[in-house]
């Protein structure tokens, strides 16, 4: 569901396709509820090996990240530091991954491409980015690590199922209509870059 608090738009898991319907690229959101770290090998296991994901991410959120975790007593863990990793690495798996798992929100770093945009459109999902380099802000939004699955993958790749509170800010990079913020921005950036190159080149004719 969606809730508004202190001027923030907060997605609360479980999230439905309707909850995402009027969200647009560039919107700023926060997330409360279930968020599971899930990166390269976990994607490969689900998509290439057809294994069932041991944490149910249906209508919930995943995070492309490899965190630093401190083990506590009684099989409990503390989130020390967590930041997003480059989402692009998961691009080739993401369509199938969204299709099979029913995940609604993918949190990561940088843009993703056509396959993910198609998944977002076909299955009602969004890709959002959390500003990178803010490992402490992200870690303190984790209230508890509820489960740890596929631990054989080691600390960075384990599925850390977290309960988060107002995790964010999350900026929408692909919306459920399939629009892609980074791809649209890149067109603008390249156009302005070419104009600037032309301007600078007139001023640097030092070899005569």
């Amino acid at each position, binding site marked *: 569901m969606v809730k508004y608090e202190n001027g923030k738009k907060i997605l609360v898991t479980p999230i439905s396709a309707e909850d995402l319907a009027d969200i647009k690229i560039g919107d700023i959101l926060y997330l409360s509820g279930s968020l599971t770290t899930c990166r390269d090998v976990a994607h490969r296991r689900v998509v290439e090996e057809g294994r069932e994901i041991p944490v149910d991410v249906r209508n919930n959120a995943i995070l492309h990240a490899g965190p630093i975790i401190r083990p506590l007593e009684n099989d409990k863990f503390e989130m020390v530091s967590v*930041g997003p990793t*480059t989402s692009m690495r998961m691009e080739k798996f993401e369509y199938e991954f969204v299709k099979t798992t029913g995940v609604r929100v993918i949190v990561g770093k940088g843009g993703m491409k056509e396959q993910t945009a198609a998944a977002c459109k076909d299955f009602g999902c969004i890709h959002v980015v959390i*500003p990178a380099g803010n*490992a402490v802000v992200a870690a303190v939004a984790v209230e508890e690590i509820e489960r740890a699955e596929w631990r054989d993958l080691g600390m960075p790749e384990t599925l850390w199922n977290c309960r988060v509170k107002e995790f964010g*800010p999350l*900026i929408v990079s692909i919306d459920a209509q399939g629009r892609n913020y980074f791809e649209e921005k890149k067109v603008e950036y390249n156009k302005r870059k070419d104009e*600037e190159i032309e301007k600078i*080149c007139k*001023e640097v004719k030092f070899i005569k």
Partner: protein
Amino acid sequence: MTHEEQVRKMTDMIAKFVGFTGKKLPDDVIAKLSELREKETDPMPKVIYDTMFRNQELAVKLDRPSCQDTGVLQFWVKCGTKFPLIDDLEALLKEAVVKATFETPLRHNSVETFDEYNTGKNVGKGTPTVWWDIVPHSDKCEIYTYMAGGGCTLPGCATVLMPGEGYEGVTKFVMDRMTSYGLNACPPLLVGVGVATSVETAALLSKKALMRPIGSHNENERAAKMEKLLEDGINAIGLGPQGMGGKYSVMGVNIENTARHPSAIGVAVNVGCWSHRRGHIIFDADLNYEITTHSGVEL
């Protein structure tokens, strides 16, 4: 103090300083980020800058590395030939990195090439990186420390241009890199450019350029002019914080240069991310130290 005690003391100090630089950004970076933050008016860049500043406060308060990628450690050493620990320096820096890795803690970021395994200690063959400049007749030792994160290492690139391509070619080389890779390297960036005679001379200068304070200028008037032109040009692209759009893109552009072969222009670009974790410490022969990058630090 015996020689062994001195070595231990310097190792401890470097380990502490390295750990500290992972938690608190240098004064010039904080000042520049504050300035850029003030100039943004749209909600998105503002929210991103607010997050960055909140993160830096929390990192100090909770005593944790501010970014989870604490990078590969790199040291640029300007060591006097009469500095008493010159013979021990390289081994001592390695030991300091291992110490900082467990005490801070730092992420394990040293993967042996070809054998492709993570050493788990942040050191390996040739890591940490140490670049030496030997200073004759001096008994001081100046050390720049740098955490080279994966994201901001990726845009690095060097090439050799033909003189016909000129400084116009240098411009294009640098600008192209900003929109292809720079936007994913956590802007606002500090851009280092090396202009020299071959790939390796240009590449090393492009990294050394990142050690220069933000707002400093190349002493050559034309090079300084080009720094300004590139800075304004990249800012006009409007990458904004995190490459998501804004009024500015960079904290600065620093160019370092040498003479070149008449038939070649070596050029390289290297970037530092917003979390530009650079430190600078100067030791005298008695291991009294001065830190120029961070005010109010006691080791």
